[in-house]
């Protein structure tokens, strides 16, 4: 279901998924029986406009991660298509996707496991610059980005274990945007963090979005984060997008039973 949404920009979206479907064939129970098919994602349409922040919510197994993988060309859809800036995006050889990788950055959930403990912070942050063959003075680009995310260039000489959890997540953010992508994708970017650090990283993401004109696509089960970070939200349940629209419309007046149940259990302070 797609909900008409007046807040949505009328211009062509930056990232667009149409009819995205992903099925997996389960192992056959015996050589004489056909294997069952599992539908991880069914006919999902999702757009992210330039400068827009979109959140995906839904419980584990709802299809959020599958949708993100398809949108990032980390997996091929069974049906449907993805475009970025009007160009088709399909999984394939790294060289053929380099233009797309240069325009996207990813932050994962856990700052402890997403940083290589043996690598200096500076080299970790510089990784995308090397991998994507970005021109320019890598050291200067890294230093600038470290400062922009609230660290210092001196942090660049250290190792992950010397940093706090919040600083590590800042490093992960710096690495995700050092090559100046147009879209930043976060998979539960704050669920492993303390509340004060969470508030700081949230503020940082909003600041980066404004300063760099980034579009954001965030996967989260944290409704508070969605409210404070996203313009629009898509709710996934059992492999389908059951509703999407402006955050306040969808979450304050949920139409689908799943969203209603979810909103009834959200922890609040009042």
């Amino acid at each position, binding site marked *: 279901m797609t909900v008409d949404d007046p807040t949505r920009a009328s211009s062509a979206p930056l990232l667009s998924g149409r009819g995205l479907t992903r099925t997996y064939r389960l192992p056959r129970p015996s050589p004489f029986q056909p294997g069952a098919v599992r539908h991880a994602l069914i006919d999902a349409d999702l757009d992210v406009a330039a400068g827009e922040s979109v959140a995906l919510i839904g419980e584990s197994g709802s299809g959020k991660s599958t949708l993100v993988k398809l949108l990032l060309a980390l997996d091929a859809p069974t049906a449907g298509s993805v475009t970025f800036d009007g160009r088709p995006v399909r999984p394939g050889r790294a060289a053929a996707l380099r233009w797309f990788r240069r325009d996207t950055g990813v932050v994962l959930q856990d700052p402890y496991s997403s940083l290589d403990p043996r690598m200096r912070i500076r080299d970790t942050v510089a990784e995308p610059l090397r991998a994507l063959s970005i021109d320019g003075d890598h050291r200067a680009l890294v230093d600038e980005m470290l400062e922009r995310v609230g660290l210092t260039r001196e942090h660049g000489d250290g190792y992950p274990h010397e940093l706090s959890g919040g600083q590590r997540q800042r490093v992960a953010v710096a690495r995700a945007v050092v090559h100046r992508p147009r879209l930043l994708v976060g998979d539960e970017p704050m669920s492993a963090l303390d*509340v004060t650090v969470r*508030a700081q990283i949230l503020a940082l993401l909003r600041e980066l979005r404004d300063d760099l004109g980034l579009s954001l696509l965030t996967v989260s089960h944290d409704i508070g984060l969605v409210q404070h970070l996203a313009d629009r939200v898509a709710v996934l349940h059992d492999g389908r997008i059951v509703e999407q629209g402006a955050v306040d419309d969808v*979450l304050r007046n949920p139409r689908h039973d799943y969203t209603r149940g979810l909103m009834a259990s959200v922890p609040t302070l009042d």
Partner: protein
Amino acid sequence: MSLSIDDLHVDLGGRPVIEGVSLSIGDGERLGLIGESGSGKSMTLLAVLGLLPDAATVRGSIRLDDRELVGLSDRDHAPLRGAEIGVVFQDPRTSLDPIRTIGSQIAEPLRLHEGIGRREARARAIEAAAEVGLPDPAGIVDRYPHQLSGGQRQRVVIATALIARPRLLLADEPTTALDVSTQAEVLDLFRRLVDERGTSLLFVTHDLAVLRRVVDHAAVLSAGRLVEQGPVRELLTRPAHPVTRGLVAASEATTWRTT
């Protein structure tokens, strides 16, 4: 059972991690303990359990009813864990043994402390599984942790913590690793079981929205010191200490606002 901690100091390898914490929980009372990572919340819990690292030195007093726990040998401390003090840690993936059945894990405190046999252990495990709302209790006790969802696993951990009817329950971020809806269910379960049994509860979290669902009073820790305590409603609306104000502001900036 009452817990009273008086002027507790813990040093780890010469570095102070808890400096003069005093707090008390009366019989059947619930207290929240909040603070950031490194504030000393978990260390306080470990001190009560007698599970601090060997490098730790402890001064002050931790009394469980009339019994002094500081200075107790591990041999004397161990029988209290599981029997009189139940524990629920954050991540059910790490607190359950992947190669043992659910039933044998739920019943372990009974087998350890009451020396009951296999058959009775199984029956009591089924009963406990039903009490925490696990589906098909008689079947689930023969399954393994990986066959359960995250919320079910945390229910198993709660069943294990409560099966020996401890009179004090310690919980350390018990719902942080769970989905929103599962989190709400598990918190409600927690509150209900503790209420029904009159268990005293020390509940550690950094999430004020979670805290206010389970306890009415809380203490705020920062850098190993207790900086403020009082009714949760007061702490949320009139935080006095800068640390509490910071926690409340951060919570407001990240928690769902209904208005």
